[in-house]
């Protein structure tokens, strides 16, 4: 049976656990940092020598840690792309912009256990020869910023930060930077622009890969809050031990934000892939099932940008049989293991690990209209397909929800959405805003058509009848 597994949130919710330094130290805090700083040079069989930082980077690779911010990209690999020969400083940025609708995990760490994040960051900085790091925190989390600033002050007082950290000769400074309230500031290059004091217009890649031309055009690492916390545990446990948590290629734990129409919404930390979607929704230890008399309709499995899943959907998942041969196993949506790879095979993603559950009381058209309003508001407006498409989709959906739909609106909407993703935009917001529309339409098209048809029928009966029998909706004057 699936269980919670508390690695990151081990102490956070214990009664009496407070975010201050003393409490953190009482619970074994900063031991991993001390261990990391003291790593002796390691001799390899081939005569090469590995410095402490190199060993940590190696270990992060061995751990299999994948980014917790959304894309699930290998953390070790990301670090290996950093240009270490440029002679420029290397920066590290903690992405604490947590704005993906449905997601509320990073703030648990920030509010309740800030030193865990800071320790993870210091180790990550040490491992990457970083002398200056930033925590970019969402503007709407002023309390989090206050707590982090307090924690940084405490860490400086203990010489975990500052000059000559714990006598090792290593210097590191760290600052909290508050965003001004835009979802796009979570996109790493938009974040970097914002940190530089500019409008958060995401950068084109090539050439502006953060690992080469990031903050101030210097090599930069951007990692999510939870990702960076995990680095601390990798040092404590060793990469190999860490990799035993979770499932192969989907190692460690994840904090799942569960919301929507379940009895017990909240955040649950699990070993990656050791609980299924169904368990997370229905198990009394997790979501506790739907409300009485309700049936499951849809699941958004990885934050609002991920493609929706429909109740009853079946997928072919790759599994290994007894002899280790790869076979395809038909799997119900509720039996999908909650991990990176299974959800990818189901055509969606675990994204920011935020599950939004919808039961049969939900108006699908209205739900999508709600999402699309968010994206139309948050598109930075830099590149054409996303800037114009996000608002177009929203205007169409608002029209549909206001009873001015047309039968053909489902197809119309689909074509608008198809013009946005797939590398046509500067950043992944293009996918984020169009995937929900594409997937809602793919899976619930009948509801969109029915809505448009009902509106047409009602218009046909109206006495004024101007639009009777036509399929053209009343259009506001241009």
């Amino acid at each position, binding site marked *: 049976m699936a269980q919670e597994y508390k690695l990151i949130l081990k102490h956070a919710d214990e009664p009496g656990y407070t975010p201050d330094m003393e409490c953190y130290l009482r619970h074994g805090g900063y031991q991993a940092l001390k261990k990391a700083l003291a790593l002796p040079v390691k001799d390899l069989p081939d005569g090469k020598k590995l410095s402490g930082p190199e060993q940590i980077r190696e270990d992060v690779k061995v751990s299999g840690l994948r980014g917790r911010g959304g894309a699930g990209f290998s953390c070790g690999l990301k670090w290996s792309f950093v240009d270490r020969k440029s002679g420029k400083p290397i920066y590290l940025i903690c992405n604490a912009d947590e704005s993906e609708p449905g997601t509320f995990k990073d703030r648990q760490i920030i509010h309740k256990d800030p030193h865990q994040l800071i320790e993870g960051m210091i180790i990550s900085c040490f491992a990457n020869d970083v002398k200056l790091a930033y925590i970019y925190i969402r503007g709407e989390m002023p309390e989090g910023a206050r707590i982090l600033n307090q924690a940084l002050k405490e860490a400086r007082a203990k010489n975990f930060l500052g000059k000559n950290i714990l006598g090792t000769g290593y210097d590191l400074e760290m600052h909290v930077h508050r965003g001004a309230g835009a979802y796009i500031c979570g996109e790493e290059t938009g974040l970097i622009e914002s940190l530089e004091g500019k409008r958060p217009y995401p950068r084109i890649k090539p050439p502006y890969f953060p690992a080469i031309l990031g903050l101030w055009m210097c090599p930069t690492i951007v990692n999510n809050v939870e990702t960076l916390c995990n680095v601390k545990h990798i040092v404590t446990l060793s990469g190999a031990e860490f990799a035993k948590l979770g499932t192969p290629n989907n190692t460690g734990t994840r904090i799942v934000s569960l919301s929507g129409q379940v009895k017990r919404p909240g955040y649950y930390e699990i070993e990656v892939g050791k609980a299924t979607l169904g368990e997370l929704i229905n198990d009394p230890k997790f979501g506790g099932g739907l409300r009485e008399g309700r049936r499951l309709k849809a699941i958004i499995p990885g934050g609002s940008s991920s493609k929706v899943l429909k109740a009853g959907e079946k997928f072919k998942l790759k599994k290994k049989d007894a002899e280790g041969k790869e076979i395809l196993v038909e799997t119900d949506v509720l039996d999908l293991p909650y991990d990176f790879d299974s959800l990818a095979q189901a055509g969606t993603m675990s994204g920011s690990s935020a599950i939004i559950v919808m039961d049969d009381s939900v108006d699908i058209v209205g739900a999508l209209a709600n999402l699309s309003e968010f994206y139309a508001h948050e598109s930075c*407006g830099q590149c054409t397909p996303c800037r114009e498409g996000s608002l177009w989709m929203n205007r169409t959906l608002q029209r549909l929800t206001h009873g001015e739909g047309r039968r053909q609106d489902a197809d119309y909407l689909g074509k608008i959405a198809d013009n946005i993703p797939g590398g046509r935009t500067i950043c992944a917001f293009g996918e984020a805003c169009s995937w929900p529309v594409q997937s809602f339409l793919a899976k619930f098209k009948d509801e969109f058509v029915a809505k448009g048809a009902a509106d047409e029928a009602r218009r046909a009966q109206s006495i004024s009848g101007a639009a009777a029998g036509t399929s053209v909706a009343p259009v506001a004057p241009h």
Partner: protein
Amino acid sequence: MSAAATTENKPAAPAIEKIKVKVDGREIEVPRLIADWSGKLTPTTMIQACELAKTEVPHYCWHPKLPVVGNCRMCLVEFGTPALGPDRKPVLNPDGTPKIAKSPRPAISCATPVSPGMEIYTKTPAVKQMREGVLESLLINHPLDCPICDQAGECKLQEYSVDYGQSASRFVEAKVHKPKAVDLGPRIMLDAERCILCTRCIRFTRDIAGDDALGIINRGSYNTIATFPGAPFDNNYTLNTVDVCPVGALTSKDFRFQMRAWFLKETKSVCTSCATGCNILIGSREEKIYRYTPRDNDAVNASWMCDAGRLNYKWIGRADRLQDVWVRGQKSSWPAAIRELADKLKQAPAGSVAIIASARQTNEELWLLAKLKARLGALSDAIPREGESDKLLVSADRNPNTNGARLTGICFTEMGINLVKIADGIASGKIKTLIVFGENIVKRAVAHDKLRERETISEVVDEHGITAELLGKLDALIVSDILPNETTRLAHFVLPGAAPAEKRGTFTSGKGRVQKFMKAVEAPGVARAEWEFLQELVHHVTGQNNGLTVESLFNQMAREVAAFNGLTWQALGDTGVTVQI
């Protein structure tokens, strides 16, 4: 601020390695590196490779002289690269050619570097569909007010819509409305609804003009170009944003609603407002000039010009232009005046004539004046005209042809130092005849004794002592000019000349660029290009025939003037040749 590459006199660049790529199946060689907007060598991008292959890739935000931002997405293409096997060696097709792995995702050609063996596909159904998608997106909220839009006829949105768009719109929602006729600054109007948010104007203003004046406010589809509140958009380069704007969002207050672009005749010319010599196009119709726009010349002005130079054309059409030949207060004719002048000059004793020319005259004209000077043993000079320079284009020397005056021997390196001698000569009665070309000399004259005083305390010397009073002592004051002024009013002979836009000729810029310009409009009345009547006069006075056309004059001059040796009118091309100065 960084002026784009403006000089040819750089040391020869090291040879750049070539790589082979294919554009729509055709193999071409392209350099691995190409100068970017700032002149720095950077990896060649797909769009540059396509340009070299003469394949058009539609684009809005990309501009060769501006930093790349990749925001319009119009230039998306598909591409493939040689497939590599597990051993990192190229995989070969059965026929031995390298196997190409097609990228699953498109790329913006303006920002993606090419690599050896890359294949770029600009004509696939997917590319076509992506272009249609971008155009549709650009058009849904566009006001489509082409009938009253100044850009119509030279609008990239119109052009690409025809070439790459769809004819029908499926958009049925309400359009986004934004401010129209926004007064951005003294010379610029913004129609925010027409703006496609390519940010060219922002980048030009920030990265080329060095003025962080423009930005974007709001989000998403509501994005709008704006200035800081209360800070008008006002630097000496604002009108370039009208040129780089691919649509009719930014319009010139001077030009808007004046003339349809397609009615304009475009004539290659050169700005005459300073020694930089920005290359321009003169837009005219029915002998009226409507606008100047910059013309690309990487050795001089890149793609830009200053606002002051651009708007300095109105005087050409002034009603009070000199249109007649006047001799001693009586209307005369060219033949009569030239004959009389020729006779007079032929008989003038050596040293009794002085010439004050203008460094706004062409090389050919100054050279003809220098011929008179030689024959008459005349003192000569020109009038310096100084202002402030800036870091981009404007030169402190506000004469367009100072170097022409120097190289033809009309003045010394330090222009204006002979003026004192000329004043003294007139005062002493030695100089009886003064020929003045294109300068209202009285304007900056200061009474002799006062000027002497000033010189001793070393003040500006572009004032001189040739006052109206002094001119009264002359037997003959021969003046050619374009507009009436104090000096023409004092003249015994008034010879109406032509504005540069009304004639052909060449100037030598501050950096030694010899550039030719063409005739856009006719001079009014009997006014004639100075070189025309000067060559007649020279012919009569010296007996030399230097030819009847600007070409032959130029070519003869090039043979005689050391600095111009080897040049020909034809070899100057459209963008000129740099000579040693």
